[in-house]
């Protein structure tokens, strides 16, 4: 039995606001889309499917996401760049202990400050969304990269 349209919309709206914040370089908003005790990981499908635990980035608290943003803003050196996320085909896979499990496909283009544009990453989001609070939040977000290969570096969250 398919999820009701309202639930799908809630998840789609959360994803839309999430990518809008990242693509507009409002990274400070990014941790706010997660619960305090969240889980966020960027991992290649190769590792994910083989059960290899290490990925590109891992966080198990909203504070670690804040640290990521702080590092990107204050410490790390990388060339000016932006992302553009396209997200589609969101599917509600089920529900577990009050969390909605949703999967979506994404493509991310990376645009360098000089205009150079490339298809930087494709993959899927595997999300556990908490709809019980005032606003929907990610309790868990797995970014599963189709490719094992990263161009140059991965600084901005996906």
């Amino acid at each position, binding site marked *: 039995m398919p999820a009701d349209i309202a639930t799908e919309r809630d998840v789609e709206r959360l994803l839309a606001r999430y990518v809008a914040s990242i693509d507009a370089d409002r990274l400070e908003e990014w941790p706010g889309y997660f619960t305090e005790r969240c889980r966020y990981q*960027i*991992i*290649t499908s*190769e*590792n994910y499917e083989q059960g*290899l*635990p*290490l*990925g*590109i*980035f*891992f*966080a*198990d*608290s909203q*504070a*670690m996401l*804040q*640290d990521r943003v*702080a*590092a990107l803003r*204050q*410490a*790390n*050196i*990388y*060339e000016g760049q932006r992302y553009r996320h396209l997200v589609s085909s969101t599917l509600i896979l089920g529900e577990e202990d009050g969390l909605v499990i949703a999967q979506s496909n994404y493509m991310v283009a990376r645009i360098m400050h000089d205009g150079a544009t490339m298809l930087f990453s494709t993959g899927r989001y595997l999300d556990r969304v908490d709809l019980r609070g005032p606003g929907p939040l990610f309790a868990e977000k797995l970014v599963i990269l189709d490719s*094992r*290969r*990263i*161009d*140059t*570096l*991965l*600084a901005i969250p996906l």
Partner: protein
Amino acid sequence: MRNALDLAWPREGLTRVPYPIYSRADVYAEERARIFQGPVWNFLCLEAELPQPGDYRATFVGDMPVIVARDLAGTLAAFENRCAHRGALLCFARGGHGREISCVYHNWTYDLRGRLTGVTFQRGVNRQGGMPADFERSKHNLRTLRVESFAGIVFGTFSDATPPVETYLGPAIAERIRRVMRKPVKVLGYNSQMLPNNWKVYVENNKDSYHASLLHAFFTTFRVNRLSQEGGIIVDDSGGHHVSYSKRATDKPSAEYDATDLRAKRRDYRLADPSLLDGVDEFGDGITLQILTVFPAFVVQQIQNSLAVRQIVPRGVGETELFWTYLGYADDDGAMLAIRQKQSNLVGPGGYISMEDGAVGGFIQRALPGGEEGAAVVEMGGRGVGSETTRATETSVRGFWQVYRRLMGV
């Protein structure tokens, strides 16, 4: 005997690197023959990646495709990943397992030592066609590499002149590799990173201890590393290999630091979730960072509890693929895995203290046009090659060029 390259090295010698070395196609082609197929040991894979007899993996020596295998007797072997018939890749996946490897094009088959064992229709079909009567399969085996495993790392060489791995490395480097590979490892993850620069730029980056505390602000800010910490550089006698190491929490006051205004120094900066850096001194020697390179293009890394090997594969004059293999020990428990997982945020394509290395290589490559007459200056720490107790030196970079020039004849 190959023709010498038309490349004039600056008279200053090792303290200069002429910029065209990073952009000339003829240099790149020559390196394929003189460096990677020369008297060097190339990283092929880890023994842990070939646990069973019959296991094999596709890898690279320079940009040449190679297969490394554990034959049915359990012996390691390596050979070109190019069919002896018409040259097709034999293994076009990450690897496989079996008694033999057959080519998809015409089904020629090879054993796991690269010997041609079968030629389909060698005697023809219905007594028609087939190979000439005097065709000898044994004359068409795959070109093999000499293989040696050292501390669980599988190396290969195409040259008979290459000494045994341990001799090649020298005692100090060998010991530091054993330090990391001190017990059975397991792979915790893979990925690769396309670097927009010549492969040598990234090799130098690893040998360059001078940049660590300056380019990598995250590093310094949290005292994971600072040049004023106890540590140093060991360069082997050839100059081609090096290890750079430092200890944490042994910070001596340093006038230079207080004098220099370093972007990298942000005293006020604190982590909201410091669990990222929770770790244990699993080596019992207080060394929190050890970067080790083996000529020409292999890196062993220990940054606190983050362990990895890095294979550097040229993908053209201005492109390089960096293969990361993250390691733990076979006997790691859940707590240790959790530590390694969090600390993996420090390294890799998105790592807090390796991210910048992916960027600066491109900065150098993109600045080459117009610099055809110019040369890099490598004088930090003097003009010689040797071990030092400071890391404010480029001694190991000079060491790389010492070996490179000898092999390339430039």
